[in-house]
Each structure stands twice: as C-alpha cells, then as structure tokens.
C-alpha cells in the first residue's frame, strides 16, 4: 500500500519533471540572490526613519507568537504540494522563487536600517536562517509569503488559514518593530503583483491549482 503511494508519487513527479527542474533552478538562484542581498543590506543599511505606527506602538517581544504562527504556515505552504498536490509542486516552488528574486531586488535598493528599538525573534529554525537578515526590510517577506500562499491555494480553509496567519504576522512584526509600516502594507500590494507574474509563468496547469 505504502509502496503504491510512493510509486504514484514518483510517477507524478516524473510527469512534471521539466517544470519542476525549471522551478528548482529558479529556486536555487533565488536562494543565492537572497543570501547575497541580505548580507549586502546588513552592511549598508543606515537610515532609521520615524514611523507613524511604530511610534504609537511600544515594542513588545512576541517571539513565541511569531514562532507559533509564522513558521508552521511557511512550512505548510512548502510541504503541502509534496504531500497532496504533486501537480502543483513546480507551481509553488516557481512562484515562491519569483517572489524571493523580486524581494531580493527590492531589498538592495534603498538602504533602510531596522528600527532602533526592534525586538529580534529569539528563535529561528535552521531552514529559515538563510532568509533572515536584520536590515532585510522592504518589503516584509514574512507577511508577503503567507499572503502569497493565500493567493496560490484555492481551498477555502487553506486560504482562510494563510490569510489569518499573514495578518497576524503583520501585526506581530509591527509590535516587535522589526519592520516599518510601509514594508508591511506594501508587502500585500507587491505580493499580489508578484503572484500575477508568477502565475503567468508557472500557472499553465490550471487543474493543479486546487
């Protein structure tokens, strides 16, 4: 039984091997670009502007909430297609990679520095380490990636879960002062544009978009 499931899974992977290869290649580029741009902005970030929302919110350590809400949701976005939506693996990896590449592009442009009173999350899992930099501010990737999940999946409960997680993460990062408010608000608008662009490139298998 288990072997049959495994063989079916392997067959499906084989069917989509070309799209998957392209998506994985793009993912590799995206990860490298993220690390390069993250290291760059950590060196050059200098400007710490005041912020209407942050100035009104006292910084609070919500590391535990962040760990409980954000990381499981990210893992869910990545793992879900491998488990139950194999025809969607290349789509999810591809759109996520486009998201990461565009975010890396934005991050290096204007050199903002993390707010002075930011409370950095006390725990970050190993898989997220390559994407975690303190001055990696514009736009808020943690908020954007969950919103991207909301846009990519069509199942209602999944959508509600990811949208809720995205809004909660937005509130948490503002309370922790790890992002400026334009980073968070712009993340929703920019992610929508990225989703449309990524969907245009990787979204041919419409039956797989479930």
């Amino acid at each position, binding site marked *: 039984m288990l072997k049959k499931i495994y063989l079916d899974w392997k067959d499906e992977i084989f069917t989509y091997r070309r799209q998957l290869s392209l998506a994985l290649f793009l993912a590799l580029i995206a990860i490298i670009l993220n690390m390069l741009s993250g290291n760059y902005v950590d060196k050059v970030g200098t400007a710490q502007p005041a*912020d209407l929302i942050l100035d009104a919110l006292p910084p609070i350590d919500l590391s535990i909430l962040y760990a409980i809400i954000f990381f499981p949701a990210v893992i869910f976005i990545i793992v879900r297609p491998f488990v139950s939506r194999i025809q969607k693996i290349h789509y999810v990896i591809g759109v996520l990679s486009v998201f990461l590449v565009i975010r890396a592009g934005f991050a290096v442009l204007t050199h903002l520095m993390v707010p002075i009173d930011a409370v950095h999350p006390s725990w970050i899992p190993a898989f997220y380490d390559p994407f975690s930099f303190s001055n990696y501010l514009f736009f808020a990737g943690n908020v954007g990636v969950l919103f991207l999940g909301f846009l990519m999946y069509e199942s209602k409960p999944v959508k509600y879960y990811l949208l809720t997680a995205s809004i909660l993460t937005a509130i948490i990062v503002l309370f922790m002062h790890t992002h400026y408010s334009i980073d968070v608000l*712009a993340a929703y608008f920019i992610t929508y544009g990225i989703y449309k662009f990524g969907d245009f490139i990787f979204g041919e298998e419409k039956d797989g978009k479930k």
Partner: protein
Amino acid sequence: MAKSNFKDKYLNWKKEIKKVIKPLIISIIVFAFASLVTLWAARYTTRIDTVYSPDLVLDNLPVQDWGFLFFIWPIVVISVGLLYSLIVEPKKSYYFIYMASFLYLIRALFIVLTHLSTPYDAIDIPLYFENDVFFSGHTALPFLCFLMFKRVWAKAFMLFSTFLMGFVVLITHRHYSIDVAAALFITYAVYKLGNNIFYKISAERK
C-alpha cells in the same frame, strides 16, 4: 458630408456625456476629496521630522536638473488622460476618475506612514510640500492610465510616460528607487482592486 459626419459624432458624444453626467459629477467630487486628503497628507510629511536614506540607484546616478520635465510632464499626462476619458471613452470617464481617486487615497495612506525625507541632493522644485516620497505618484498615474485605457496609442503614450517619469524622478533625485519600483506593483494591485469596486458600478449602469 464631412461636416455632417462631424456633427453626428458631436451629437452622439453629447448624448453619451449626458447619460453619464451624474456619476461624472460625483466622481469629480470624489476626486476633489481624494486630492484634498493627499494634500493634507503631503502637508503632514512636510511638517514632521524626517531622515533621508542612501540608495543604490541614486548613489550611482549623478543628479541632473530636469525640473522642467518633472513639473510639466505630469500636467501633460493628466491633460491627455482627461481628454481621452471625455472624448474617446466618455462612457467610462467617471470610472477613470474614480480609479485615479482611489490611487490618490492609497498613496495618501502610504506617504504618512514611514517618514523618509526627499533625498538630500534632490533638485529644488517650488512645491507646496516635501517628503511625500513613498510611492511615486509621477510613475503611478501614467501606469494606471496605461492599464485602464483601451486604445493602443493611448496605452503607448502612457507606458512611455511611466518610464519617462520613473527616470526623471530618479535622475532629479526627487524619489528613492523603491518609490519608483514599488509604484508599479502597487498601482497594478490598486487597478485590480479598484476594478472590482468601480468597474462593477459602471457595468451596472449600462
């Protein structure tokens, strides 16, 4: 023959304008309100303490005094946009104005949030306000028109204006590069979101 053809077209246009006159007036009132909100937001950013930020593009782009284009081209864009709306697609004129108002309101919201100043070496422009940097309205408005308009010549003009304005605000150092890059994405999302609201309103009237 040509004269009567022109007269027919004029009468037809007049009929179409008459049909949409009420929503057109309402949309102009909404636009005036959105402009006031934007003006208020820009006055706010002029008053408050701000800091400027280094920028990868600006630091490598020597500042040039293209203030004339910075000032005049948006007026050209608005004039072409208005004439297009009223003459070429009068039925949708109020929809265009609603969409522009919506973009202005979203921009007003953004500019009051994070207090960056206009780059320190920006060229001097005799404006009533300063520091309304994120996101670039110069880039956003022609891009919105590009997305909304149907005629190829109008689309081409607006796309050209988008790139021209994006370049001008960067070379004059009046905006940071994220202001320009983000303007395109934000405008696209505003267009999609605004379509859901205002296009339905205009479709219901048909």
